[in-house]
């Protein structure tokens, strides 16, 4: 059933806070500018009076020419509808200080730490403002526009040394340290005292209780990762344990921080497309979609009709294989080594075959272009898609369910083990299947439709208990709903051109900002792009689902047993490429 189109509600913040809030006036920008001193008050009103309960993204932009810095907030309602942008502008003089919103929206915790780490914005009132992606002691805030990386060559690509000058020099040879290194002048490595992560352990220390019932008890600090077979990559968690019970947890991330934001600002708009493949490397098609939507918003161009269908087909196939792998890997984490994972990988391979046939690569598809897709889906590939969608995948989903869903050992392990409740999930900006398993029917495909999802008949999968079993089963439900969408899409797909634009490698993007978001298999994936009319984005920010979802990890884990930690982490379905960027 189609839902009624969501009414665009205009929030009159200016009238509610005269003199404090001003409407944004720059062309291409929307939202409100809030006075720094009243930020917390305005945010509280937004949450409590206007109903914007889900603060999805916090990021900063360095406007070097105007000599100011801006913190941008994107707030949404879990009941659906468009979002609201509000921002704070501060002069670019150190220390750059902005009040923290952590007591209004606890979900900003890690994102504010990221803005501190990469932009050097000090959030006053944040209880644990440490670097997050880089390490303590690292020199400088890399995303500031006047900060240059060690292999800095030019402000923006393409580099002249490639063409027309064309001299093959390794980047190392241009660096004074003959490597990807940059040290302050007169630095002496012998005298350097490493940080030893004292601040991390200090952050954990507040959970330490020395004495109980006259008996002295010690809390144990356990580091899991970054090399651990069940942390889905190079994730690390520092845990404080009381016996087997987790009493404190801090995620330590950044072990796969590949500087997407900085590289993205050197790239041209099109050059970012293959980089987005490498964010959530299970779902390159979804990443492409989110980025294409964002830039198309900025460029204000239509998408070819056939391409819209192809995009939906690819994104949903991607979701199916992601959830299958989720089930397989979760069972691996729980100790059912290999069998479910191997079964899941078979179906994934068949889906990847389709990706390979249409785009040329199994994982790094780089398939979407602004205005459409790169090449048409051949009739043979379409036939293969139909084979999978109508014949094979429904049967295999049933088989997967038959294999696992009633297994008494699995049910005993999963049922009743709390993951997260609805209230906490919304507070901590959790999105995706985890939020829906907790009973909040928030799916961006329905709540704030993008592409052509409003044309399809599907249900938003919801489960009520928010325990591990629901989190597991909701993936099966979502596979079924995706197959429903796929079935409609392959039947309805029209013939026609696959791109509304001419193929061009240098696109013209007018100045302005855009926030494009999609329901990726892991939650809300969004890009925040600021253009100043040049061929390269001024700001390119990824709002990854995994990174924001682990803000809640501490809340989820406290009070549970250590042996549930791996399963809980598995439930969030994190992927490090996206988490660390």
């Amino acid at each position, binding site marked *: 059933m189609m839902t009624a189109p969501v009414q665009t509600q205009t929030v009159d913040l200016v009238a509610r806070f005269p003199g404090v809030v001003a409407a944004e006036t720059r062309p291409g920008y929307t939202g409100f500018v809030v006075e720094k001193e009243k930020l917390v008050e305005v945010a509280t009103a937004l949450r409590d009076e206007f109903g914007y309960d889900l603060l999805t993204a916090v990021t900063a932009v360095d406007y070097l020419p105007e000599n100011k810095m801006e913190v941008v907030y994107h707030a949404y309602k879990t009941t659906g509808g468009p979002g609201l942008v509000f921002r704070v502008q501060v002069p670019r003089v150190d220390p750059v200080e902005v009040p923290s919103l952590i007591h209004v929206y606890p979900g900003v915790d890690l994102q504010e730490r990221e803005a501190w780490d990469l932009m050097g914005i000090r959030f006053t009132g944040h209880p644990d403002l440490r670097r997050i992606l880089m390490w303590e002691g690292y020199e400088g805030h890399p995303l500031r526009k006047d900060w240059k990386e060690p292999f800095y060559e030019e402000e923006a690509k393409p580099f002249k040394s490639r063409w027309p000058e064309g001299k093959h020099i390794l980047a190392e040879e241009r660096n004074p340290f003959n490597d990807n290194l940059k040290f302050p002048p007169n630095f002496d490595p012998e005298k350097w005292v490493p940080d030893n992560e004292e601040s991390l352990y200090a952050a954990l220390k507040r959970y330490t209780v020395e004495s109980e019932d006259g008996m002295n008890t010690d809390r144990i600090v356990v580091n899991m990762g970054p090399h651990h077979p069940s942390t889905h990559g190079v994730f690390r968690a520092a845990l404080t344990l009381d016996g087997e019970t987790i009493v404190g947890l801090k995620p330590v991330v950044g072990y796969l921080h590949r500087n997407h934001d900085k590289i993205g600002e050197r790239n041209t708009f099109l050059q970012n497309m*293959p980089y987005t493949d490498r964010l959530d490397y299970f779902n390159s098609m979804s990443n492409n979609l989110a980025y294409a939507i964002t830039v198309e918003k900025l460029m204000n161009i239509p998408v070819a009709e056939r391409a819209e269908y192809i995009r939906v087909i690819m994104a949903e196939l991607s979701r199916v294989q992601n959830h299958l792998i989720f089930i397989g890997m979760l069972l691996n984490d729980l100790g059912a080594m290999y069998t479910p994972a191997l079964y899941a990988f078979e179906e994934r391979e068949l889906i990847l075959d389709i990706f390979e046939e249409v785009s040329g690569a199994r994982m790094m598809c780089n398939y979407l272009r602004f205005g459409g897709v790169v090449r048409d889906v051949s009739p043979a590939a379409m036939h293969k898609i139909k084979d*999978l969608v109508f014949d094979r995948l429904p049967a295999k989903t049933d088989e997967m369910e038959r*294999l696992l869903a*009633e297994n008494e050992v699995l*049910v005993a392990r999963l049922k009743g083990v709390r993951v997260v409740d609805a209230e906490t999930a919304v507070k901590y900006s959790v999105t995706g299947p985890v939020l829906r398993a907790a009973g909040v029917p928030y799916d961006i495909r329905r709540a704030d439709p993008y592409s052509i999802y409003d044309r399809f008949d599907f249900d938003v999968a919801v489960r009520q208990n928010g325990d591990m079993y629901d989190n597991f089963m909701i993936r099966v439900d979502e596979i079924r709903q995706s197959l429903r969408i796929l079935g409609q899409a392959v039947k309805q797909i029209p013939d026609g051109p696959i791109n509304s634009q001419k193929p061009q490698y240098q696109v013209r993007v007018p100045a302005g900002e855009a926030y494009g978001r999609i329901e990726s298999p892991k939650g809300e994936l969004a890009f925040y792009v600021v253009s100043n009319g040049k061929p390269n984005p001024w700001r390119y920010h990824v709002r990854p689902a995994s990174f924001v979802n682990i803000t809640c990890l501490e809340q989820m884990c406290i009070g549970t047993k250590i042996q549930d930690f791996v399963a809980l982490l598995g439930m969030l379905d994190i992927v490090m490429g996206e988490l660390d960027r």
Partner: protein
Amino acid sequence: MYGKGILKGLGVTWRRFWSTYLEDISWLLSGKKRYFTEEGVRHRSSKHARGIFTVQYPEEKLIIPEEFRYVPFLVYDEGEGGKKEVRCTSCGICAKVCPPQCIWIVRSNDPNTGRPIPEPTEFYIDADICMNCGFCAEYCPFDAIKMDHDFEIASYGRNVYSLEKLLKPASYYASIRPENYAREEEARKAKEAAKAAKAAAKPAA
């Protein structure tokens, strides 16, 4: 009944186990070879795949689709007497569009006149930077750079490819991407015919 769910699951694995042998027998009865044949690999990559799923590389290889892309290579046409007519004109579009900037092109100058000639003296691709995105091949206006299908290129050292290593004949390109090659040749012939028609029309006018 407690244990019913486990039995149900075991039923799935049981069926999966036997289907390999059932499939083997049915192929045997129909007189076809299931292993080490293209037909067998195709069957195992289709919706009918049942039982064993493994493609035993290197004895068997997966069917590589035409659009598959690995590292790029440069196309040359075989001229008279085995002369390599490099299609590249060193226009630099591939180097400009390359996202990780892994292409270096040294342009050529005529030794006598000093004017640039449309052919590269040197062409470097750092395969240890290349992200196989395919932009260079997609935006090349001369069909001079294409993405290779050869993935068996592991080596004992770093991989910076020079012009010599990158050049491959057009016949090789035609063999790995027949449909693309045919389409491009047709477009090129149409273009040449139009040019010839224009040239023929000019003196008449």
